[in-house]
């Protein structure tokens, strides 16, 4: 037998990932929370909890509720702010042998630029991921991400203030996600990640109150996977920049669906709550799939959907 360890490395625009499995923002903290259970050095990458310019307290409780095969969250982007991140979290993160990506957001185009500027030159930050799903305060609270023009403006503002590759995380709560994808590609984004959560809600019929303090929240988990896969498939064909796929990925089989649909890497989110070792299990499962199907490089499977 001529056995060779399959090659799980993938390129993602200017980034080189040791494997295509990245933990999603908001589900893996700042990495350290899971460190006793998951060796972060084995991961393709970590996207840390979304950072704003100033610390934010987040929404009132309840912030999460389980729904069929999924969960709604309305955390309210609670975070320690970019300054505390640089001081308290990055020193540990930069010792890791994995791609640390920093998710950022703002409530104005200028704020997005300012967060990017604060992270400029920060050693140990491999890339920025822009969360464009936030309400745009100046435009009546409509999410930046639902408007191709606003999404492109935010992308440009971040690119102007950073020396890092920029990935834009797209919201699925739009009529045409490909239009937003093309707009941010044109604005210069190095890559895309999708999908963010789908807006949803749940009601307690006895009290007739919403189950979330914020009334509505973002749906994640296996419930959204077919929707996510569909969007990844279409966006990957609509743009030339690389796409990171996510949405309800629980195991290696799920991850492979996204890779075959055209994603160059995947993010694992809600699965981390269900199985803290989900990301590592997926990496092992991908390796096994390659061995079982005589695939030498995982990259050879990307975008190979037969139609």
């Amino acid at each position, binding site marked *: 037998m001529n056995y060779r360890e399959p090659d799980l490395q993938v390129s993602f625009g200017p980034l080189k990932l040791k494997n295509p499995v990245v933990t999603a923002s908001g589900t893996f*903290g700042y990495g350290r929370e899971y460190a006793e259970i998951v060796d972060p050095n084995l991961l393709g990458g970590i996207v840390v909890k979304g950072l704003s310019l100033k610390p934010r307290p987040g929404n*009132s*409780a309840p912030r999460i509720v*389980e729904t069929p095969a*999924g969960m709604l969250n309305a955390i309210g982007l609670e975070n320690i702010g970019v300054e505390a991140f640089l001081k308290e979290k990055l020193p540990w993160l930069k010792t890791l042998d994995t791609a640390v990506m920093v998710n950022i957001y703002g409530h104005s185009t200028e704020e997005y630029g300012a967060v990017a500027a604060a992270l400029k030159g920060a050693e140990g930050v491999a890339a920025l991921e822009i969360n464009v799903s936030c309400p745009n305060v100046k435009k009546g609270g409509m999410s930046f991400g639902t408007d191709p023009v606003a999404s492109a403006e935010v992308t440009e503002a971040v690119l102007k203030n950073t020396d890092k590759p920029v990935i834009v995380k797209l919201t699925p709560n739009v009529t045409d996600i490909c239009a937003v994808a093309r707009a941010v590609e044109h604005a210069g984004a190095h890559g895309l990640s999708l999908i963010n959560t789908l807006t949803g809600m749940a009601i307690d019929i006895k009290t007739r109150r919403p189950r979330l303090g914020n009334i509505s929240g973002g749906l994640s988990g296996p419930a959204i996977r077919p929707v996510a896969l569909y969007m990844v498939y279409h966006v990957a064909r609509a743009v030339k920049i690389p796409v990171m796929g996510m949405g309800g990925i*629980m195991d290696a089989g799920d991850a492979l669906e996204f890779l075959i649909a055209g994603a160059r890497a995947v993010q694992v989110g809600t699965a*981390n709550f269900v*199985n803290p070792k989900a990301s590592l299990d997926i990496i092992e499962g991908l390796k096994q799939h390659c061995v079982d199907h005589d695939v030498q490089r995982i990259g050879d499977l990307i975008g190979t959907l037969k139609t």
Partner: protein
Amino acid sequence: MGIFEHKAAVVRNDEVAPSTFLMELESPSIASAAKPGQFVMLRVWGGIDPLLRRPFSICSTGKGTILLLYRVVGKGTRVMAETEAGTQLSVLGPLGRGFEPPGTGEDCLLVAGGMGIAPLAFLARSWEDKSVSFMAGYGTASQIIASEHMGIHGIEIALATDDGSAGFHGPVTGLLEGALEREGKKIVYSCGPAAMLKRVASLCREKQVDCQVSLETVMACGLGACQGCAVPAAAGAGKNTYHVCQDGPVFSGLSIDWEKL
């Protein structure tokens, strides 16, 4: 020390009162690391609906095992109730901050409401050498969980029931009010419904008695990553919220903003 995640065999899963079960799981690592007040996140089955793990205070530890007390209230606990001995379930723990020991010479007053007896049973068992008065409230007599099920021996549990069918007729905080009048230095440990804990905290504040309460919230990760388990911090805490999974589940009664909870 440390946090463990592994498949644990269900040793037994017995109905100890109507719709109330004790599940014993084989976990030598968690059993030896666990401190009273800490909890585990249990994946109740291998499927995706219910999806999330469920948090449970550790009720007791046996020889290489942990005991979880639960009442069937929803999807997750219904699945648990149907689980047979021998089933392997993924368990994550021990998690969170447990109870702090009393000061020298302090009498420990343990105040439990319903399923809130779980972490206090573990506490009573671990502190058999300390002066402990245990009081537990239930809705009605049939819900009472026998001490020996929870591994408690040699400690009398004073009972209160809402309908007066056993022990004191009224809330368990009625028993606490009497106990707080007794002579000597005291410290209160409590777990139960939020409204009850609010009353406990307020009584203790009036009497200037230290109190530690164990809070329950929904949570997704149990590790401090998802920030889903936020509770409002009292003014002056220097932060708006605490996360039950990491800052708690045990808090000083004074550190919580009970009006906003």
